[in-house]
């Protein structure tokens, strides 16, 4: 990679796909609106529809697999369980939907389950899509533009990098402990016993590394009191700014209306 390509790589947030290039604040507002609607919309179509729409959006920017995998788990585990639970333990009686052996599944129960699922799906689709389509670094840079203190964004960002790193460290520690005679293969009890010798070095070395890392940050001017420059510019536009305001206004109206109908029903 030559210098110009390098500059391009580090200076802009543009990746060439619509959803990836949207300003993180826009995506955050969108997610917030989607979640609000999930709570206020009557019926049960909203959550499922939103999930499908966002799936399409994810597919257009190469995030189909990531988004799809997580939503599948949510669908099967949370939604499936929710519908089952509501259907089985429905107290309202009324029209029977289907009979399974001794159990009667009432239509009311299934509907209740679907409605609750819609809320869950609305929440999770919105948040998962936001998470998948937003680079943490770009989000932090945007927050800094809205005057979030750089030290706070640093803490959040470094946690993102730290977690996979801890996973790597954990494997090394596991190898070292096995090599000194701590049995980690075998029964559940054996593995449980090995938990402490796995955890302790991870914690202890994290603490001692923390001091070194603080000093290293110090040498990079972390505590120097002055406005920070940022190499990378996260793009925004007048259109997006207007869209954010518009979105909030429309969502507020829709929520009030929908909430009214929900309250009536």
């Amino acid at each position, binding site marked *: 990679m030559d210098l110009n390509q390098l500059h391009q790589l580090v200076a802009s947030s543009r990746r060439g796909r619509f959803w990836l290039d949207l300003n993180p604040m826009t995506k955050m507002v969108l997610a917030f609106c989607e979640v609000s609607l999930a709570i206020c919309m009557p019926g049960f179509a909203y959550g499922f529809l939103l999930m499908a729409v966002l799936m399409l959006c994810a597919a257009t920017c190469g995030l189909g697999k990531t988004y799809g995998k997580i939503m599948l788990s949510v669908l099967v585990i949370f939604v499936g369980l929710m519908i089952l639970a509501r259907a089985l333990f429905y107290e309202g009686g009324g029209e029977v939907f289907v009979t399974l052996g001794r159990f009667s599944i009432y239509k009311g129960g299934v509907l209740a389950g679907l409605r609750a699922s819609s809320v869950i799906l609305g929440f999770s689709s919105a948040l998962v899509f936001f998470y998948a389509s937003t680079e943490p670094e770009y989000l932090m840079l945007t927050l800094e533009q809205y005057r979030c203190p750089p030290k706070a964004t640093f803490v959040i960002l470094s946690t993102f990098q730290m977690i996979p790193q801890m996973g790597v*460290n954990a494997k*090394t*520690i596991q*190898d*070292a*402990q*096995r*090599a*000194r*005679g*701590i*049995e*980690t*293969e*075998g029964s559940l009890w054996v593995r449980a*016993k090995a938990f*402490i*010798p796995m*955890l*302790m*070095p991870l914690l*202890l*070395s994290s603490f*001692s590394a923390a001091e070194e890392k603080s000093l290293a940050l110090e040498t990079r001017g972390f505590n120097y009191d002055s406005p920070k420059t940022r190499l990378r510019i996260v793009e925004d536009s007048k259109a997006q700014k207007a869209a954010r305001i518009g979105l909030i206004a429309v969502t507020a109206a829709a929520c009030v209306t929908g909430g009214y109908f929900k309250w009536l029903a």
Partner: protein
Amino acid sequence: MKALELKGVSFTYPNGFKALGKLDFSIAPGEKVAVIGENGAGKTTMAKLTNGLLRPGAGQVLVNSEDTAGKTVAAISRHVGYVFQNPDDQICNQTIYKEITYTLRYNKSCAPEEIDRRVKEALALAGMAGMEEVNPYDLSFSHRKFVTICSVLLQEPEVVLLDEPTAGQDLACMRRLENILDHLQKKGTAVLTITHDMEFVVRNFQRVVVMAHGGIISDGTPREIFWNLDVLREAALHQPYISALARRIGLPGKVLTAEEFAAALRGSGRTL
């Protein structure tokens, strides 16, 4: 009987990298072997195969003539003690005593009086006598390295493997380490050491194994190895300083130490 044997061992990492190809190696009880070679040559891979952290794709690993296949790493560790490069990956107790006796107490494999005896012996060797109640993290990195060495000493395994034990050590620590290696050899333990320090090798080892490109390219005495320039070139290694100097000024013979250098200088016509 060999303490450790690798027969036709090969290993490929999951990402496809062929780290070792048909390796044969053995070490007898009471033998000290230095393993040298640049990073990526396969030294660490070979080391991890000896104690079961990695399992060979082909071939056998025999410890005390028993195949390690089917045995857990922890079980093998009673016979092969591996001292890792980073002590902080292992230390999980708040006192040195608890730390070095951890495995023995964890596995309940030793009587308390015997444990105490071993502790005193190991700490004396490591220059930490009387420091049983000290917290390892209150000590320097160099001390913590000795703590992990003590943990291995306490197990009294037949084979001890040290991975870069000299990194970051000062003169006194180096001498203590060399003492420990001698002590192990006298006890009949087979000692395998991965190192980059050529002078350390010259001072302490009679057998050197050179690895490059996933195999052993040479196995001999320090004199044979450090004066075989083709092997050194292939393994991307340098001669020890004294040898390099001797070669540079054209001294005859295969000089390794200052004594030999002086003798060679004397012998080559100079009366000293």
